[in-house]
């Protein structure tokens, strides 16, 4: 390095060019939060020129900056002489800028990471702070899409495609869990098995798409009529199960009766037909006599069998 003034000016000039044109936001603040440097990236994205912002307090320029939080961060930087960081996962942005790709970009604003650096003067005192703003929109969008895709896959792997109820694998897991919970805490818990009456006739008279509609409607009524803690799933074909936590057989009978009347009252319009249908339900409350989850299902199934034999469109408890 040479010390001739001309060379120094020259060097200073291209250094400033670099700072100005680098595709990263650079801001220098003094300890009163007044802007001392505002590079090209910041000018272009904020639509504010240097002349507008220099020597103005950053909080007056950007009222959306969380002032208390920001001051606390910068205080750590000045006291500890230590960089501080913010990432998009905690705060999506510091300055609300548009996404770089207003047309094809999926985000409506620029996700930002920010580093806050202490700048020392000749005596080693920190009296300026440099903010470096990184555009991390691409990374953020990719990560968010991945999270979304994972959530979707998780949902798909747990639910039944036709009805949106829990699939067999998933509700059987719940059933096993409730069974274990009962063994430990002896909280009342009941299982309802539900079967659409004369479903084969519906398929035969109106076709399988009509049958699918009836199954979907039944599932929708189950979803509406249950509490959040209840678990509704599809057993297979036209059979459904409902696990009712903290509910004894009498309580389950009330729920079953409610589901039965709602289904009886509903009708499915299909082409020029109106399809009315009913369901039969079997109820089994867990008791110490029920030795495993399969036996619990069998017990509810017996209730269902009795309901069918007694003329359908009714709910019957099977006592163990």
């Amino acid at each position: 390095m040479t010390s001739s003034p001309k060379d120094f000016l020259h060097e200073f000039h291209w250094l400033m060019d670099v700072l100005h044109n680098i595709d990263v936001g650079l801001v220098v603040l003094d300890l009163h939060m007044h802007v001392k440097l505002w590079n090209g990236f910041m000018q272009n994205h904020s639509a504010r020129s240097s002349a507008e912002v220099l020597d103005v307090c950053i909080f007056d320029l950007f009222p959306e900056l969380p002032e208390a939080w920001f001051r606390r961060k910068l205080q750590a930087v000045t006291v500890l002489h230590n960089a501080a960081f913010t990432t998009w996962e905690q705060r999506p942005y510091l300055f609300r800028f548009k996404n770089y790709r207003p047309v094809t970009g999926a985000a409506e604003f620029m996700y930002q990471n920010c580093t806050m650096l202490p700048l020392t003067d000749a005596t080693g005192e920190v009296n300026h702070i440099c903010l470096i703003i990184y555009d991390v929109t691409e990374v953020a969008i990719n990560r968010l899409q991945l999270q979304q895709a994972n959530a979707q896959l998780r949902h798909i792997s747990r639910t039944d495609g036709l009805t949106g109820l829990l699939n067999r694998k998933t509700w059987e897991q719940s059933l096993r869990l409730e069974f274990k919970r009962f063994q430990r805490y002896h909280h009342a818990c009941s299982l309802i098995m539900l079967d659409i009456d004369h479903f084969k006739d519906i398929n035969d008279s109106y076709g399988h798409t009509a049958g699918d509609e009836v199954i979907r409607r039944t599932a929708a009524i189950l979803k509406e009529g249950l509490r959040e803690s209840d678990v509704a799933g599809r057993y297979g074909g036209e059979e459904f199960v409902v696990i009712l936590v903290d509910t004894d057989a009498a309580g389950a009978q009330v729920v079953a009766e409610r589901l039965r009347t709602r289904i009886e009252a509903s009708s499915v319009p299909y082409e020029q037909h109106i399809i009315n249908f009913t369901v039969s339900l079997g109820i089994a409350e867990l008791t110490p006599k029920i030795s495993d989850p399969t036996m619990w299902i069998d017990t509810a199934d017996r209730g269902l069998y009795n309901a069918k034999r007694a003329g359908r469109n009714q709910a019957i408890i099977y006592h163990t």
Partner: protein
Amino acid sequence: MSATVHLSEDYRDRLQEVTNVAMGQAADRLARLLDTFVVLSIPHIEILSPADIAMALHSIDNSASVSGVCQGFIGGGIAGEAILLFNDTSFTDLARLLKYDGYLDHDAERELLMDTTNVLFGACLRGIAEQIDMTFSFGPPMVLGQHQRLDELFNPKEATWQQALVTEINYKLEGYNVNCDLLLILTEDSIDLLCKKLDYLLT
């Protein structure tokens, strides 16, 4: 690559001394920033294998009350990562400590962990760097186990290194339910250079 890195008693003492001094400075700075007295344990220095480190991290996956944050640093041929393990730390106390007055949702909790790590670790490494006349660049802190279980993130069997130099420091903050362990992990290939730096310092 050497099969075993050996840190002689002499170097260990020197490093211990450097770390002690750094921690003293760090405690002073932290006290000024946080308005509370920081109780620091005497640094414990050891050469550890990937399996040892995996074991220390294991607690994050298996206990809801342990959180971990890592932060990388590099400079002049020395590189490493700091891992802060928060044991049964109260988030409301962390918020009080950092004068954070917003509502504490999950994101805010993570931000508190990251900020605390940055502050505690930054203060400590800065003191060490000054004494051995180096400056380091820091990466942003990351909360561990947030997106992936740690046993997937770090598998000691697949590690490409055999040993690392680990300095362990325990932090307690007077009047707050905050207790954490800082593991300052230096990579195998940083150890030689660090020893050279320690030579300069004490001759």
